[in-house]
């Protein structure tokens, strides 16, 4: 199970550190790839730019996606992920501060699998990450990676 990669798309360095800490506190030892914005996330997923040498058959088990990102925002990343045959079925969990209805509607409309609001309180966040880990890494079964496109 631990060879499954988690892709964390998050621009705030404090949130990055806290998410990694929450994963560790829950004994989730999977490799976490951190993308600082939408551009880096897409470069990782599509093996371009600094990730040009990456094996395209290896995809993350789950993508934790923040919405407010510089350069290319979360919604745009989600759109690209759903449009591409190789990445179309990757589970995307939107993990964001916003609880605005319009964002939830837009997120689900673009094909997000889940929408989790980042709580201010860290103990709650640890709990949330624990549940996300248990579900997406252990219980959920992903679609096989499509080798076309």
């Amino acid at each position, binding site marked *: 199970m631990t060879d499954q990669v988690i892709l964390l798309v998050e621009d705030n360095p*404090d*949130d990055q550190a*806290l998410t990694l800490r929450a994963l560790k506190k829950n004994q989730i030892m999977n490799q976490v790839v951190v993308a600082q914005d939408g551009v880096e996330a897409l470069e990782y997923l599509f093996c371009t730019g600094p990730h040009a040498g990456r094996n395209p058959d290896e995809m993350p088990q789950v993508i934790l996606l923040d919405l407010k990102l510089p350069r290319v925002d979360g919604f745009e990343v989600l759109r690209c992920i759903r449009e591409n045959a190789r990445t179309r079925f990757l589970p995307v969990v939107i993990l964001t*501060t916003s609880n605005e209805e319009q964002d939830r509607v837009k997120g689900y409309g673009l094909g997000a699998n889940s929408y989790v609001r980042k709580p*201010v309180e860290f103990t709650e966040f640890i709990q949330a990450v624990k549940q996300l880990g248990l579900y997406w890494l252990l219980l959920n079964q992903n679609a096989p990676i499509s080798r076309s496109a």
Partner: protein
Amino acid sequence: MRAGSDTPAELKVLVEAFNEMLAQIELRDRELREARDELERRVELRTAELAAANKELESFSYSVSHDLRAPLRSIDGFSLAVLQDYGERLDAEARGYFERIRAATRRMGMLIDDMLNLARVARAEMRRERVNLTAMAQAIVADLRKTDGSRKVDCIIEENIVADGDAHLLRVALDNLLGNAWKYTSKHPTARIEFGQAQPNGHRVYFVKDDGAGFDPAYAAKLFGAFQRLHGSSDFPGTGVGLATVQRIVQRHGGRIWAEAAVEKGATFYFTV
């Protein structure tokens, strides 16, 4: 009107007078039409300005809540990290300081949420319809009972209470009023909360009554001010936005809200919509 050459002189005078009157009326008529057109133009302009201002406020609130919450998360998260990783090396006082930091952070988070809700209530589009307030109150009380099953609270909700108003906003208002009644009776072993309606002077008035902590009527003027509280947060938690929100909702319906109370003798909140 026309006066012929053979029309008697008095008649001519009359006809001229009428013609003069008609001309005046036509002039006034034209001026009125122009004034009305001008007014309509101004209303359109103001409406467009208001819509633009609302939209700006919307995205401002949204940004503010997003951007203010992120540093709060950092403060809470890293304070907890210090406690978790270095807790044994700290004495009780230092640990206490960190707990205060975390409590203050959580409080600020609540304030942001409440402010956002108040702003949203002020801006939301209203849609009037017949709303069953009895059913609404019953649902709210059922939820309250779920959050604290140990409490012994007698809830008397009058049957068939209806109102003409925006269902969502009325729900927020009742949530606040009943939630307050629930909260401020929490220090008593048993409690009695009533929701009903009365018709003094023929106007329908709704009320939420409780027999809890009440408040000192000397401070009644502060009751509905945003962020104003009449109790310390160690006595009863809260941000002081609840009643301001209810007042906003009631005002948007064209109604009034007022309260009667005495210390430790409960409170009754009356409102019209």
